[in-house]
């Protein structure tokens, strides 16, 4: 309410976060798992004096740098860009709680980037031992950056006792920290295998022995990763707040996504084990692409579920998904929602000056006396600020016009008054009764009619 609301038609602005975040995770997890893979495998290649495998690893490192170093960094910054635009209050809170966590992560980013370039560009010129050390500096730095960001994102889902103690480390080592670290480490190893396998499938290695070696060794982190994803995933579920577990059970879309996560992980495990691990000659582009697709499906679904179960919060217990603080709800209800928001107050003062009472504060009753078109406009303002975080208007993501298809004005009013009673994962509406009227009137005006052909005898 202290910041202007960014209206993104059809998609809603928070969905842009999901879009960028999923793309980023696909690359950043490879940046972690791939880094560990390269460190382990380079050491193995030197130890076994396998110069052909070493040459392949150099090829792969170029592909790895091309995909991760810039694309990963830009999409990572892209998440920052987008959360600040779409969820400024939550970002403001997180940055003040965890700026030093991110600053530590930055140190590891710098180590990653310097080590990655030296690892690749000085390949063959660095002594093997130094080369391997730099590979490990990359791998460990990348994994530690995963650990640091996981502490922060896990906090968003379950801050534990931070709300009472407000201590950085209490927030960082929250109940979700370990399970998410395990699951994400698993995801990173799993994706690393799939990327290597994909790259190797298109890599024109004429030597069948080399192809077999790449194939076998690239599956090992993936198999371990699939196990870690499963263990971390189950623990993640057990460490969820009760409301998040209930949200997971209540939303059918999330049920399906959970099935996709576990089913795709099991399929990937089976395909890796019975495919390249046991039958290295199966290294074909088609098979690799299929495997890669399953891996992306599992990881993408996991990210989406992780975001979705936080509702009605953006940061659990700290910032509501309607961009206000839980402790502000009562105050907003007594003072007025439009009056409480800096930008909404400015809008009313400018657009409906007649609705300003003594002292320049908004008189909500006067808003109800406005002409119908102005009341609908005021209702729309309320909708954007209170609902558009999760719902588009007429068409698009979770559109209210569709969700309320055929609802009576009384039903709509009842939900507006107490959305949290209609659906426990919705935040309460923090407006005065007059604002409930305005929002209801606006929603009634956009709700679509009951679908034709469903007039069943005995029905409503």
């Amino acid at each position, binding site marked *: 309410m*202290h*910041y*202007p*609301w*960014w*209206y993104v038609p059809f998609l809603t*602005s928070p969905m842009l976060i999901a879009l*960028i975040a999923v793309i980023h995770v696909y690359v950043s997890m490879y940046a972690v798992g791939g880094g560990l893979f390269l460190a382990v495998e380079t050491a193995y290649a030197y130890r076994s004096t396998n110069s052909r495998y070493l*040459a392949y*690893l150099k090829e792969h490192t170029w592909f790895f740098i*091309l995909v991760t170093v*810039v694309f990963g*960094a830009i*999409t990572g*910054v892209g998440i*920052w*860009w*987008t959360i*600040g*635009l779409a969820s*400024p209050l939550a*970002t*403001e*809170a997180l*940055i*003040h*709680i965890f*700026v*030093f966590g*991110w*600053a*530590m992560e*930055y*140190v*590891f*980013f*710098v*180590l990653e*980037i*310097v080590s990655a370039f*030296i690892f690749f*560009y*000085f390949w*063959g*010129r*660095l*002594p093997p031992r*130094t080369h391997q050390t*730099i590979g490990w*500096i990359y791998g460990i730095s990348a994994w530690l950056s995963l650990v640091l960001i996981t502490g922060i994102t896990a906090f968003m889902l379950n801050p534990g006792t931070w709300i009472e103690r*407000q201590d*950085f*480390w209490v927030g960082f080592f929250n109940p979700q920290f370990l399970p998410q670290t395990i699951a994400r480490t698993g995801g990173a190893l799993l994706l690393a295998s799939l990327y290597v396998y994909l790259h190797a499938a298109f890599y024109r290695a004429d030597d069948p022995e080399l192809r077999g070696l790449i194939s076998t060794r690239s599956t090992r982190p993936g198999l371990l990763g699939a196990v870690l994803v499963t263990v971390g995933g189950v623990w993640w579920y057990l460490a969820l707040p009760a409301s998040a577990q209930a949200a997971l059970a209540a939303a059918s879309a999330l049920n399906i996504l959970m099935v996709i996560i576990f089913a795709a992980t099991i399929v990937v495990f089976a395909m890796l084990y019975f495919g390249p691990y046991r039958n290295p000659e199966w290294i074909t582009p088609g098979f690799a692409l299929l495997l890669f697709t399953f891996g992306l499906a599992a990881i993408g679904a996991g990210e989406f579920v992780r975001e979705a179960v936080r509702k009605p919060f953006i940061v659990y217990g700290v910032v509501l998904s309607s961009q206000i603080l839980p402790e502000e709800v009562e105050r907003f209800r007594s003072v007025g929602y439009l009056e409480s928001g*800096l*930008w*909404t107050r*400015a*809008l009313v003062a400018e657009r409906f000056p007649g609705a300003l009472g003594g002292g320049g504060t908004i008189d909500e009753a006067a808003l109800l006396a406005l002409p119908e078109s102005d009341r609908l*406009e005021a209702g729309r303002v309320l909708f954007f*600020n209170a609902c558009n975080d999760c719902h588009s208007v007429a068409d698009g993501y979770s559109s209210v016009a569709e969700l309320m298809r055929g609802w009576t004005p009384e039903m709509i009013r009842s939900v507006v008054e107490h959305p949290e009673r209609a659906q426990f994962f919705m935040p309460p509406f923090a407006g005065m009764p007059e604002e409930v009227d305005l929002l209801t009137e606006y929603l009634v005006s956009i709700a679509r009619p009951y679908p034709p052909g469903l007039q069943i005898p005995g029905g409503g």
Partner: protein
Amino acid sequence: MDTPLIGPETLLGFPAPYWFLAFFKVFGFSLHMIPMNLWYAGLLTVLLAGRFGGENARRLRDRFLKALLILIALGINFGIVPLLFTQVAYYQVFYPATILMAWPWFSVILLVMLAYYGVYIYVVGLSRPSLSPFRRAFGWLAAGLFIFVGFLFANGFSLMTNVSGWQALWRSTSFAGAALGTGLNLADPSLVPRWLMMFGLALTTTGAYVLVDSAFFAAKEKVEYRQWARRFAFAVYTGGMLWFALAGSWYFFGTLGSEIRLTLLRSPTLILTLLTALSPGLPWLVIRFNMDREARGLALLTGFAQYGVVALNAVSRQIVQNAELAPVVDVTAQPVRLQPSPMIVFLVLFVVGLGIVYWMVLQAVKAGRRPTQEA
């Protein structure tokens, strides 16, 4: 008159004193500026030189573009720290300003990515017998995109301090009070000179880079190339310095409010203002003396002096930013809820990280002197 749309202070407080946040913001920004200057003005400069110059100019262009792949990655990563600390200390103005221009701001991500891969497509072509027009076009496209991204950044950061202009912009680019995110700070007279001033500064960094590159990393090039590069560095630096002086004067005398100008011309900031304005003279002189001979020490001095120019600029800009915001928000007086142990862990990691980076670079320098062995 529009009321200032500045939200309340965060109840969480600053996790460190303001000076600490400002130090890392400015330090991080100065580090970010070095590689960023090279994409911003350097790419266009070397493409133009390669297009209209001779063999040496084409050699420089190819060398520059190859290095640019690494410089872009470094620049993006170095940009994280100033972004972090800006959001901690300037959240009350950063979020509204960027939301009002959300789509252009968001497009920075896509444009930088496109520009990076444009450079990459160009560089891959350098290993082939001839560079196709298609690949050339990507190089020019990347140069144009980087300059446009600079324009968007100038918009974002000038809008942060142009608080009085928010409401008019919001009024013209909103729907039922919700920002459409299509605004740009075009009505602000400081926008264009600010953008151009940065371009001039970026040209000077490009000149200094060409000199340092020819002294330290071009040992395998012909002596004629290195001689040419030193002269070219001087020409670019001179042009950049003049550009910086003109655009800077326009910015300073033509757009800054009289109060702020007086602050900058009053002791003790007067010394800083003079140093900021005159500092490009030192690297320029060093490059001039270095022009006819190979002297690594002088090239190194040029590099450090140029960092000084950029850092002074960053400090002065910080002072101007605070002075512009002073009537609506005093960022230096916000409550602090110190987080001592995370701060110490960060500082320790920072120092250890610098040590590891130093060690790795040292290994690379040693390895660079060895002949390549096949993997």
